[in-house]
């Protein structure tokens, strides 16, 4: 099974390989989070979401259901 961002632990740095939702892809891309980009999972809020990811030097929040749509390569 392919891993998604939602399976990651805090501190993991991974590469984004595929995004399963078109609308989500557009949003992520426009914020500089594109395929092949390195993503670090910085923190997870209580109850498992939202999380903060770091892409280059920007911090971006994202909910769990969206993270589940982001396939990664550890």
């Amino acid at each position: 099974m392919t891993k998604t961002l939602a399976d990651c632990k805090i501190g993991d740095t991974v590469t984004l390989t595929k995004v399963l939702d078109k609308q989500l892809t557009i949003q992520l891309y426009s914020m500089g989070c594109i395929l092949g980009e390195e993503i670090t999972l910085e923190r997870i809020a209580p109850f498992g979401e939202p999380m903060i990811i770091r892409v280059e030097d920007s911090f971006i929040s994202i909910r769990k259901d969206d993270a589940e749509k982001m396939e990664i390569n550890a």
Partner: protein
Amino acid sequence: MEVVEKKEKVRLVLVGNPNSGKSTLFNALTGLNQRIGNFPGVTVEKKIGNLNLSKNKKAEVIDLPGTYSLSPRSEDERVTFEYLTNNNRNDLDEIVVIVADASSLKRNLLLATQLIDLEYPTILVLNMMDIVELNKQSIDVQQLEKELGIPIVPMNARLGKGVDQLKERLANFSYQKVKKIVEKHEEKDPLDNTIERFNWIKKVIAKTVKSEGPAKTAETTKKIDSVFTHSVWGFVIFLFILFLIFQAIFSWSTYPMDWIENGFMVFGNLLAETLPQGVLNDLLVDGVLAGLGGIIIFIPQIALLFMFIAILEDTGYLSRVSYLTDTILKRFGLNGRSIIPLLGGAACAVPAIMSARTIANKKERLLTIFVTPLISCSARIPVYTLLIALIIPAEKQFLGFNLQGVVMMALYLLGFVAALVTAWVMKYWVKSEERSHFIMELPIYRMPRWKNVGMTILNKVKVFLFEAGKIIIAISIILWVLSSYGPGEKMAQVDHKFEQMFSENPHLNKEDYSDQIASEKLEESYAGHIGKFIEPAIRPLGFDWKIGIAVVTSFAAREVFVGTMATLYSVGDEENTESIRGKMAKAINSTTGEKVYTKATGYSLLIFYAFALQCMATVAIVVKETGGWKWPIIQLVYMGALAYFSSLLVFQWFS
């Protein structure tokens, strides 16, 4: 090279990613005071200003909401998109000034390349060069200019560094065709197009940007966040901050408020004595001054409230609160982003409702707009303060805390809880299939700029004074007229009755009866008749006809309540020696002979003002933001019913 003839005036359109410093630059260019804050989505509507570029060249500047791309996902981004794609403006030559945050150039260049390829005449501002320097990065501006093919100006908009250079280059701007960066059509496959753009941008950045390791600002932000967004400490800190704000507004500010109150009393007496007796004297002292004084004493509280909000906005902390509260708010049909309107609602619902534009999901946005007016706004502060002081003795304690403070806090909590519960109910009622996201950039922490904070306070106090002041003066005057004159001979008959009584009983001291005469005359005045007319409807809530008048006038704005009370209780009061609170405390119901402001009436009135939508400005903005009358009417009726029945319950329970 194709050079188009230049006009005397040009239009500059500021476009860029959220939080890149567009409004800061706008202010630096125009000298205006647009709202600035360190979180994405501060500006949500178009703003216009003017400046001189050179001796004979003027410019109009347009500040727009920030956007990440030209495919808008929320209302604020749509404003920018629509402005850019609307081609009906041929009156002036335009230059698109792309404002980029140079400290995260890669992301910021995406929008820049899109705008260049759409053949807008562009100039690029590399803002936040101080951060670039701090992060030990360097940008080869000349090389970047060559790669992009457009003029570039490095900038520190906060300090105004680079503004003159920008003006100079704008004054000498030449409209020429620029080579396309990505030839492929955007519409066909926007995703491929974006990837191609980023590939190009990465190559260019490799050539032009030098950096040593990860950015220092990002590392610092990460450290601060390990405390402020901590699963436990994050919430503790947030509650502590709220408590601190509360403490400051409702306890520290009592000293300056007392000074202002006393000052007004002295001034009123002075005016009453120096001006010749007569109608003008009465109007000024009893009408206008009483109405204004009632509101001016709240300036310290308003100033403190706005100070804290400005500091929170400027540091970047608000985005962290969004992050912390998203899961909770999600359960109530809202979004982490809703916290900005909700907290903003504590200041004023009007800008707060506008800031809901950043919420992309339509249903979440609607729910946020609907519940924001339930948050106690600054206009309720005067009402709460006055009534609480009236019904609760200052020295009374509750579990070791000052009871007045506890009640005040309870009212704020009540508003917040009502907002959440309302949203939760509406969640099931309003249907939507649209998916909801919480994809939001958390900006780096910044020190607040005290000048900006100071200007914000000054502006807000000014608005509070002049906007509220205008309404209050107008209403005070109308009210004074309505309460000084009455239909027919009724008011004269009251005078007559008492004169007769005095002549029949010469030993009576006229002074002792002045209050009674005044109050009987007020009852016979026009205002008295209006109040009497609605009294049956509000009697179950414990309100008498004077309160009825205030409830009616408060529809213009809530703070008018205090002014109305001041005017109603001043008309006919010869001495003018007492504060409104003192006069209200002594008020006696003429039919029952009991005190008007009992605990039951006081609490009932407090609840009424907490819930009722008595604000025309809010109704107007909801009409605008929801695009029709449906929602504001539902809101008005809902909040009215909530206020009425809650007050009814409270009054019956306490009496």
